[in-house]
């Protein structure tokens, strides 16, 4: 099982890349933790929103994840 993590805006700088594939062992929390403490902390900031397969999550409740899901981490937008 694998997840595709996408890092937008300044999260890309923290991650060192725009996207990364991670093993999905159990929960999303475990997947985030596997990215290391600094990136995990940035991804968990309250203003960072999540989109799963292009659908924006309304809250940070743990989504049910499937193999191949794309999880995008969206920091506050700076607008157009």
């Amino acid at each position, binding site marked *: 099982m694998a997840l595709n993590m996408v890092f937008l805006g300044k999260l890309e*700088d923290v991650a060192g890349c725009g996207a990364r594939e991670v093993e999905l062992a159990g929960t999303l929390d475990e997947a985030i933790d596997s990215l290391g403490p600094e990136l995990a902390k940035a991804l968990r900031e309250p203003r960072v929103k999540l989109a799963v397969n292009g659908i924006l999550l309304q809250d940070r409740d743990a989504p049910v994840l499937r193999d191949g899901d794309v999880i995008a981490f969206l920091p506050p*937008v700076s607008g157009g």
Partner: protein
Amino acid sequence: MSAEPTRSDVRLLTQAFTPGEEVDRFTRAHPAAGGIVSFLGQVREGGGVEALELQHYEPLTLPAMEDLAAQVRGRWPLDGLLILHRSGEMAPADPIVLVAAAARHRRDAFAAADFAMDHLKSQSWFWKREKVDGTWRWIEPREEDFEDIARWDSAAAE
């Protein structure tokens, strides 16, 4: 010959565009409109910004622009609406965003373009970074943008 509304023209562009050509083409497509209001936002020259980059997220950015267009069309009677937005790296004086609204009544065209810009500025899915003195820096949202949006929320109570 009637002012039948056309589909909105909403595009996310990764290459430079020429605003005047786009506005002329849009105007020709709406000969029954009495007035066309357009807004052009460009990378400001002289503020020390050497380059600007807008990052979008494919599954969200263009659909949200299309949603905004539909919202504008539902709010004002327009003959046509154009929303063009750049993504990628831009140089000073490059156009970033072009919004144009064609309407029978001038006031509707002004309000529609104004509303579209306020919402593009504050709610669209773009992440912006600027290069100053050779260093890229991500831009945080501005409080002013949220105030711009609030103007329309109170107007909705009319």
